[in-house]
């Protein structure tokens, strides 16, 4: 089968003769991929920032597909079902899954207790090959994979596997009250969705901060918000203080993670010398820009060792810090409803539809922010383009 093959930082190719995955466990399913996406967090892997990213691995944790085979213990899915597959691999029975912490399952990732099991996210995510391929092995197939509702566009469905739930949960974790001012750092796909979802909770004002002009223009229109370029400011924290009566925002959302720009010190120590787990610039700004007693919500992905953030301000301002991987299964019923009712328009963020064979170019375009790229969609050769 055709599958993406990671060869080292910034190097990706397509294998044409990769073996089709097999059932390894009674609760497995084999899914033939119909659509997959490249996620901003895949770029952290692509840039070599995530430990235990092994050569030969296939990335991809956002995909839909048709069930081709099921293990002997699978009861809810059947061959031929067209499913969207949440990026979390969750057993459904451990104490964390029982609390709907499906992104923190205790029985899907042997290699890191701090991280749940994720498709195609290095061995820090459990060592599973991902969906940037023609076929994928899907463990615990009865738990998270969900049959795509009749009438739902496949492009909307594939975005429900990660981007929409992550953006929604970013807003949800912010505990937004009606009239709150919400600042979102990052105008990538998740930041765009977080800004859009902030309104669902009754935000009074939504401000997005980034440095890529085309993305700022996009988010202004798509998410009905204000958008500012931090390169045009002396100090984004001062700007946001001025914008919020000198109090600070009620809620700040970090939708950037470890690949942030904007601080030479963070970039050198985090991305060049790897002395910390990437650049924590956005989180630093979020903590400093939120009001006293405000909430900082983190969905940006960071590496595991540690990061430089202003702990003193966090403590002195009495900030609540909430963070997690999105618990996709928990949110799906509500989000499917929002999409079907037209309150959310996920596919509106897809800017590039690329054959899987051209994945190296797709990664490059997404990584380098070329051709006004917001979100690239990959289409395997045997999947219909319609």
């Amino acid at each position, binding site marked *: 089968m055709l599958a993406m093959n990671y060869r080292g930082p*910034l190097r990706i190719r397509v294998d044409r003769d990769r073996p089709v995955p097999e059932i390894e466990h009674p*609760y497995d399913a084999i899914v033939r991929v119909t659509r997959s996406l490249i996620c901003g967090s895949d770029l952290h892997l692509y840039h070599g920032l995530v430990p235990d990213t092994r050569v030969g691995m296939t990335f991809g944790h956002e995909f839909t597909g048709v069930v081709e085979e099921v293990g002997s213990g699978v009861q809810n899915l059947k061959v031929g079902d067209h499913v969207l597959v949440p990026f979390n691999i969750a057993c459904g*029975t451990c104490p964390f899954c029982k609390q709907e912490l499906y992104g923190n399952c205790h029985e899907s990732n042997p290699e890191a207790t701090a991280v749940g099991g994720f498709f195609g996210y290095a061995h820090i995510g459990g060592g599973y*090959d991902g969906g940037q391929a023609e076929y994928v092995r899907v463990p615990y197939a009865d738990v998270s994979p969900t049959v795509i509702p009749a009438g739902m566009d496949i492009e909307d469905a594939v975005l429900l596997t990660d981007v929409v739930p992550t953006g929604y949960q970013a807003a949800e974790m912010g505990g937004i009250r009606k009239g709150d001012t919400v600042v979102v750092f990052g105008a990538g796909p998740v930041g765009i969705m977080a800004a859009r979802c902030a309104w669902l909770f009754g935000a009074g004002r939504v401000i997005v901060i980034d440095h890529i002009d085309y993305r700022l223009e996009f988010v202004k229109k798509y998410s009905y918000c204000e958008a500012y370029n931090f390169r045009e400011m002396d100090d984004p924290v001062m700007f946001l203080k001025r914008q919020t009566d000198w109090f600070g925002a009620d809620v700040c959302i970090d939708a950037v993670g470890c690949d942030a720009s904007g601080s030479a010190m963070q970039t050198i120590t985090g991305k060049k010398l790897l002395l910390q787990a990437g650049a924590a610039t956005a989180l630093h700004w979020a903590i400093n820009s939120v009001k006293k007693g405000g909430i900082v919500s983190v969905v940006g992905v960071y590496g595991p060792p540690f990061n430089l953030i202003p702990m003193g301000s966090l403590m002195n301002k009495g900030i609540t810090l909430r963070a997690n991987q999105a*618990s996709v299964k928990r949110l799906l019923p509500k989000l499917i409803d*929002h999409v079907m009712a037209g309150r959310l328009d996920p596919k509106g963020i897809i800017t590039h539809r690329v054959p899987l064979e051209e994945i190296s170019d797709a990664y490059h375009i997404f990584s380098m922010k070329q*051709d006004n790229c917001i979100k690239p969609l990959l289409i395997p050769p045997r999947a219909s383009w319609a």
Partner: protein
Amino acid sequence: MENVKIEPDQIISIDRQLANSPKDHIPGWGIDADPENDPTYPMKNWNGADYERFNYQKPPQQPVRFEVFHSIERPGITRVFGTSTPPRGLSGRIRSYAYKYSEATSAHWMTLLLADRVDSVEGIISDLKSGTIPNIFKERGWTAEWKYNRAGLVDKVVTGLVVTTVLISLLSSRRK
């Protein structure tokens, strides 16, 4: 972009105006607002005493067909695990060493990063051994670079050629 150097009083007025303005044009505005949702997800929930929470219903164990590392912060492997890229070669040995340390240590993570870099060199060696010459141009997506940033690509190539030429000249002059 909007000029950020406006007077604070003006900004406060904009702030009030925006926060209080009707949001009729925004689909679903306020539909999920819930004052009871505080504290919101994720919350710390009590899930039983230690002996109770350990005895949860566990799925069957996936058969182990190759070496699977596990964090020393847990007693063994999980009931399912990924089968991608088992450890191999020198990088595999380095990874094995890294997994002797907990996730709380730099020794664990920095050693894994070192293994990743060794792995990428081993990948090239492995390719060459099997008769595959890596197409670095294609792998790095330079087809797209040529299409969308031709001047930048030319700059990179020319700079690379100049640096290589200078280095070769320096080395050959030293030998003489």
